[in-house]
């Protein structure tokens, strides 16, 4: 049964008419048109769908949309400013060439932002630990670690 749910995403309120059990990821992508978060497995195993919940990065593919209504959600689209300037983590990812195919990148960027929210100056080990939920298949890990280091200094 569909109900009206109000979500707070990227600083704005959105009203959606959906089944309350719908995964948040589906609502973000299909109802709100936010394609930053990606579907990689649907099982919270790969991290491609990560968004920030009250500043903490977590996968969005298994959490029911009704539970997300209680939180402030930020997606990849909400990171930069309104003038099109990139968030420092995005900028560092570009400069350190942390992209290959780019499919996992949403998750890695969001997890890195979440990590820096908690630990503004993480060590390499803390970055590796902080990105434990993200799988990348192209093998950009070393460059991501460098990018997070760089972003932390900005």
């Amino acid at each position, binding site marked *: 049964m569909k109900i009206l749910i109000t979500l707070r995403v990227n600083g704005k309120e959105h009203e959606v008419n959906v089944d309350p059990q719908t995964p948040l990821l589906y609502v973000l992508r299909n109802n709100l048109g*936010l*394609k*930053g*978060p*990606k*579907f*990689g*497995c*649907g*099982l919270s*195993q*790969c991290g*491609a769908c990560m968004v920030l919940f009250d500043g903490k990065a977590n996968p969005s593919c298994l959490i029911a949309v009704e539970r997300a209504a209680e939180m402030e959600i930020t*997606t*990849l*689209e909400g990171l*930069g400013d309104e003038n099109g300037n*990139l968030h420092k983590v*995005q900028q560092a*990812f*570009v*400069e350190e*060439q*942390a*992209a*290959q*195919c*780019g*499919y*996992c*990148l*949403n998750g890695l*960027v969001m997890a890195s932002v979440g990590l820096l929210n908690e630990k503004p100056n993480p060590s390499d080990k803390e*970055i*590796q*630990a902080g*990105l*434990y939920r*993200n*799988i*990348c*298949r*192209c*093998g*950009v*890990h*070393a*460059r*991501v*670690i460098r990018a997070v280091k760089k972003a932390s200094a900005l």
Partner: protein
Amino acid sequence: MATSFIGKPKNRVDGRDKVTGAAKYTAEFHRPGLLHGVVVSGTIAKGRIKNIDTAEALDINGVVEVFTHNNIPSLAWLDLSYKDMDAPPGDPFRPLHSDEIQFNMQPVALVVADSLELAQYAATLVKVDYEVEEHRTKLADNLADSIEGKGLRAGFTPPESIGNFKEAYADAEVKIEAEYSHGAEHHNPMEMHASTVFYEEDGSLTVYDKTQGVLNSQHYISMVFGLSKKKVRVLSPFVGGAFGSALRPQYQLFMATLAALQLKRSVKVELTRPQMFSFGHRPITIQNLKLGATTKGKIEAISHQAYSETSTFEKYIENIVNWSAKLYDCGNIEQIYKVVRLDVYTPLDMRAPGGATGMYALEAAMDELAYKLKMDPLELRLKNYTEEDMSDGKPFSTKTLRECFKQGAERFGWEKRNPEPRSMKDGNHFTGWGMATGVWDAMQVPARAKAEFSADGTLTIGSATADIGTGTYTIMTQIAAETLGLPLEKVTAELGDSDLPFAFIEGGSSTAASVGSAVQKVCRKIAKKLLKEAGKIKGSPFKGADLEDVVFSDEKISDKNDPSVNMTFSEVMKSRHLEKIRKKYMLLPNMLKQRKYNRNTHSAVFAEVKVDEDLGTIKVTRIVSAIDGGRILNLKTAHSQILGGVVWGISMALHEDSFMDHNFGRFINHDLSKYHVAVNADMPDIDILFVEEPDNVVSSVGAKGIGEIGLVGVAAAISNAVYHATGKRIRSLPLTLDKAMTERKI
């Protein structure tokens, strides 16, 4: 010069799109009214479908149709029509063709509905009754049933023995013999396979497909469904990783196209993560190596034998036993390659197919021989270094492997190694140092490119190639900008569109050398035309000038000897009243020149591991990879390619294993929590260096492709390091702690 870019560490041109989510992948294209298809996977490995009941699924409001072998139209009759550009010999799999089941998780139905959720639910209601037949899926139990690994396939070289191995081996003073094995592996790109087929008003199709070659998908649809190529446009602007999995059209393309044509509606089909384990994979292989040498370490005899799996319907073959003749100066080499037909899906090229696995066994055996000889493993390789391929006596176009060994060893500190196993201890961990060599083909294939230069100073170049994360957009842009002397921002590269000029599937590390050269040549044609037009301007200093007399840089044509004599491109276009200059170029590899040489990339890989004495856990702590990859076009994208290859090597050595339950003949660890890949916490210190030598035999841009060489040799180097750490030789991949711990405490 401000417009010199080749060889520079430039940022990717698509970097911003990828960190903002602007890059769109296949399943993200949408139009109102798009239908969703969900594939029903079979549950037996061999047999027949007795009955398939779709009534309950069709009863659901919103379910449009369920396609099975019972209700699809008659399609192309000949097996040949189903052959794609990368097909091995045999009869390709035809989805929904008949009631026959040839492998587990075979697609048996497609449920099409208004929404994904409805299609997913309805798919659970499709009931299939099977007549089960006994299946054979275990390679080790069926070796006696093997057939010769021969056949015609692009890129495949039939194994060829030279000299007299048996005699030389019998006479050899020092010998080793060992058997190595590895399990099946699945590509698992992060983006799952998907096809979005838009049915246009005029009955033509616009297809977004996850593919490494849009023309391959277009060809397949056209042949199977009997459509003119003019009515099928295939696009694939961004690919979320592929690693070989998208070389061949996968069954979701067939399914989505079938449904779109039958329903005259637009349809999207995306596979689930478990279904990513239902098609091609790196084949499970058992290899036997015999090496014979003199007591001084001169190799006299090499035998490389491999048994690999294939399906019952196609004969997948890869270059697995062919590599030793390219590396070692030995006149007696035996190469034996056999495949066994099993009730599995046809294996599929997976990053460095054959090379990654064949070189694992060969280089692990080399380490065993070094220990038996009490010789340093690097010294053994140098002592048997060859400047020519032993199988045909031809030299290499370029080979900087000797220098790779030297520089790699220096960076790693190899000379400080105590060769004695278990001799280096760090607290509770044994430290091990191992090394290995890698080799891969440096291919160039035909490619077309087009270019259009406009009066506003912008250039668009295009070729129907792919960028699977490798950086094709970026190097096309760089090469074009440098050749014509334009800023990068004024160049737009187009790819992944079947309307663009011909390019092969992006595979075999051939794209940079092929499409890169075509782009360079087509831009030279534009330059030539610009110069000719410049010469026609009244009082022009460039009247009758040749390309050799001038320099194209900073949006100007300048006299080579006197840069103050110059003309801007916009001046030329304006004076000559030109709006556009359009050119095309067809690159054909220079076969006459290339056939005189062996064309290969090489690597020297050094690895450090730490193995926990009590728990047997293995951690790779350091890798140095020295690469012979010709001229490096972009240090950043090239570095990323090798980095990715090294990570794949670590993953192959320590983690990856598609585990089959032979009771069912099905891969059972089919998701990303049970199919392990290397993750952030596994990352060691990875040091990559390039020993460059432009290779103008392979390509006019001097590049040798490097998408695969980074992986080859890594698993062997790690495996050899584990032996050095523990004194225990584990001869099967992945090297897991249970294998390290069996028999005794390590």
